[in-house]
């Protein structure tokens, strides 16, 4: 019985291990140091989105707007860095440093996430619908702000965030590692973490227990927005350019990582650790499909099948529990 339970808990880790074994056999490039760092660098953006959304899904919600918030935040970060803010009436121009533009982008992401949480709790709108609306709004705002044009040449200082190495490790990997640490602490060691699991497990019981459900949801969606914004800064820095359609469909990879990592879409069950494994699995799968020269159309089919498989396994586990 113990071994069966351990097996269930380690499903995604076993799947990742098997996938890596298969890829290292079929591709001689997969296990090279350069490629593995590249995989980690690539998944750092998805990790940001996924660990933020894990909290949302743990409360039995969903956030479909993370990709669009990523795009808008990245665009605002790039726009402020490059053009600043002009106040013609005051004959004043406000320039932004890398720190300023990054903080402004995170503030925008957090505000949009908070707005999601407020709409969901204030008007009892299903999270799917509320965040789907935000997806469209943020994407539209992104196109409006950039006028549909990329914002490029953001300077070498900003480029360092996505491109530099620190102590032999890419900076985006350091950033995502620090964020993972923070979120692991939040979920495992704080009352907020316990509230999140309680709300996802049984919202009515949580309410009766005196858990401030509204406030927790506001915070959870705001954190998801903030993480999407950090992802936006990373993507923009890596490309040294903000694309108005950046982050398109990123929410799907994020949800896939969370589901594969064993977090239940019904809420209350799952962990940041599982999400990390899920994100790495998706990243390795993407990388492997590219290394094997699989057509981008087939890549989508394969990814879809993997997500479907993960959801079926999740359902079967729930039944057996």
């Amino acid at each position: 019985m113990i071994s069966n339970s351990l097996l269930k808990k380690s499903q995604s880790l076993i799947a990742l291990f098997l996938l890596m074994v298969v890829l290292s056999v079929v591709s001689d490039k997969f296990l090279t140091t350069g490629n593995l760092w590249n995989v980690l660098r690539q998944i750092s953006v998805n990790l940001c989105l996924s660990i933020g959304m894990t909290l949302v899904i743990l409360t039995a919600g969903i956030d479909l707007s993370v990709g669009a918030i990523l795009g808008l935040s990245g665009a605002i970060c790039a726009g402020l860095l490059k053009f600043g803010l002009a106040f013609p009436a005051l004959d004043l121009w406000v320039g932004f440093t890398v720190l300023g533009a990054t903080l402004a982008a995170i503030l925008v992401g957090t505000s949009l996430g908070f707005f999601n949480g407020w709409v969901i709790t204030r008007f009892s709108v299903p999270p799917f619908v509320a965040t789907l609306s935000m997806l469209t709004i943020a994407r539209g705002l992104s196109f409006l702000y950039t006028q549909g044009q990329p914002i490029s040449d953001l300077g070498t200082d900003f480029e360092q965030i996505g491109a530099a190495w620190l102590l032999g490790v890419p900076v985006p990997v350091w950033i995502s590692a620090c964020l993972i640490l923070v979120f692991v602490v939040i979920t495992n060691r704080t009352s907020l973490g316990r509230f999140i699991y309680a709300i996802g497990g049984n919202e009515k019981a949580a309410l009766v227990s005196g858990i401030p459900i509204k406030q927790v949801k506001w915070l959870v969606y705001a954190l998801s927005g903030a993480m999407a914004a950090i992802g936006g800064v990373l993507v923009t820095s890596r490309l040294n350019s903000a694309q108005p359609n950046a982050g398109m469909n990123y929410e799907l990879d994020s949800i896939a990582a969370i589901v594969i990592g064993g977090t239940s879409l019904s809420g209350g069950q799952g962990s940041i650790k599982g999400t990390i494994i899920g994100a790495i699995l998706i990243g390795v799968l993407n990388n492997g499909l590219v290394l094997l020269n699989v057509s981008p159309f087939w890549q989508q089919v394969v990814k879809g099948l993997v997500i479907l498989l993960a959801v079926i396994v999740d359902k079967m586990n729930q039944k057996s529990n």
Partner: protein
Amino acid sequence: MKKGIGILVLLVLGYQSVYFEKLSTRTQQASGVQDFGKRVEAILVQGVLNNPVLTEDQQLIKELNNNLTNTQKKLGNRLGIGESAYYLVKGKARISSIRDGYVLLDNGSGLDTQFIFGNEVRDASRMIHLEDFKSQKDLNALTEALNKHLRETKIPAEMKGIQVGDEISYVGACEVAPSDLPVTSLTIYPVEIKH
């Protein structure tokens, strides 16, 4: 105590995040008016008026009809996009008519003095290289500055007092595509018109 530390952190973050300038000074710098002015002048003087490939328009027509490929190589400038090439021409002719800014010459060619848009002058000058520009936007801005200077300042000033029947000398740029063969006349975007 906590509030104080919070406010201090916010102040430090704010100080490290933004800086201020006068908008008017900034706009002047950002528009790069002076830089464009210098570059426009360089294109017109070095790139067009003193360019050794400047050819008599009737001679160019003859050479284009004789051997397009050689003429493109010898006298034209191609950017590798499309099949057209851009040429610098000069000539002397009498004005047959002027309609909507189009000055028809008695040699069959014409000077479009009103609608100076597009890339003809810029590309024929050979002074512009795509890799010199950080973005397409900068390239477009310089092109428009060049065309605007010709369209709104230089050519209208030089056209003052010129009438049908006058003999003029001119320098300009034109585009010729292989599909234009045989060439009988040229539409020239003028850079200089002298009475």
